[in-house]
């Protein structure tokens, strides 16, 4: 199991190259992760941005947690050490649900369409999140 997998994480490489190019690159480099072919620049435009000069994705790494929140953005990717840098970043940036750790921030609507953000309660109130199996448990 790789260090990335140990952190319950799946890694994707993204560039604007074609599927064929990705296949060759993956085989040549023996990557253990998937390469996504962002040939329409959709992902790159929204996440990394595009380097106009080379018509390619900017070198940027995003760490996204299980709930879909972006927890870290690395814009200063060093190619040589990026593998180990990513592992360090994951350990630092991904939320840990343990006593003594900071609770990960979130923004969620309630059933009255009111929005709640956890960090808004900082220095004001203790917060209890009570998870339960379902409304009307016996139905």
């Amino acid at each position, binding site marked *: 199991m790789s260090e990335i997998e140990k952190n319950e994480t799946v890694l994707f490489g993204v560039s604007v190259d074609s599927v064929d190019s990705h296949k060759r690159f993956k085989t040549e480099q023996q990557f253990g992760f998937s390469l996504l072919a962002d040939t329409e620049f959709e992902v790159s435009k929204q996440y990394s941005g595009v380097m106009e000069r080379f018509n390619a994705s900017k070198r940027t790494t995003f760490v996204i*947690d*299980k*709930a*879909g*929140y972006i927890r870290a953005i690395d814009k200063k990717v060093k190619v040589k050490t990026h593998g180990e840098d990513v592992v360090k970043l994951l350990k630092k940036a991904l*939320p840990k*649900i*343990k*006593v*003594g*750790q*900071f*609770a*990960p921030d*979130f923004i*969620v*609507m*309630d*059933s*009255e*369409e*009111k929005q*709640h953000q*956890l*960090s808004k*309660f*900082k*220095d*004001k*109130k*203790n*917060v*209890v*999140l*009570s*998870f*339960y*199996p*379902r*409304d*009307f448990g016996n139905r």
Partner: protein
Amino acid sequence: MQVFGITHNDAESHQKFTEANKLNFPLLLDTNRNLALLFGAVKKLDDERLKRMAIVIDKEGKIVKIVKEVNPSTHGADLVEIVKNLEKPKSN
């Protein structure tokens, strides 16, 4: 202290549940179970039901208690007790 109830049911169900039980705290919408996954109340997004658990967060934003054994009939009082203990001045 601010309490939030969280499960995967939709707003309509939440509203009925709030009314039926005269709840005075908000029920958060987590229909896609993202929040449950983030905090460990489900292991996978397609888990049918959420685990009964409570996470207590202090004013600093730190997790101070994870309650895994929840007794639904005394849960409210149990939580109040936990939070009261948090606010006791430390004895040093």
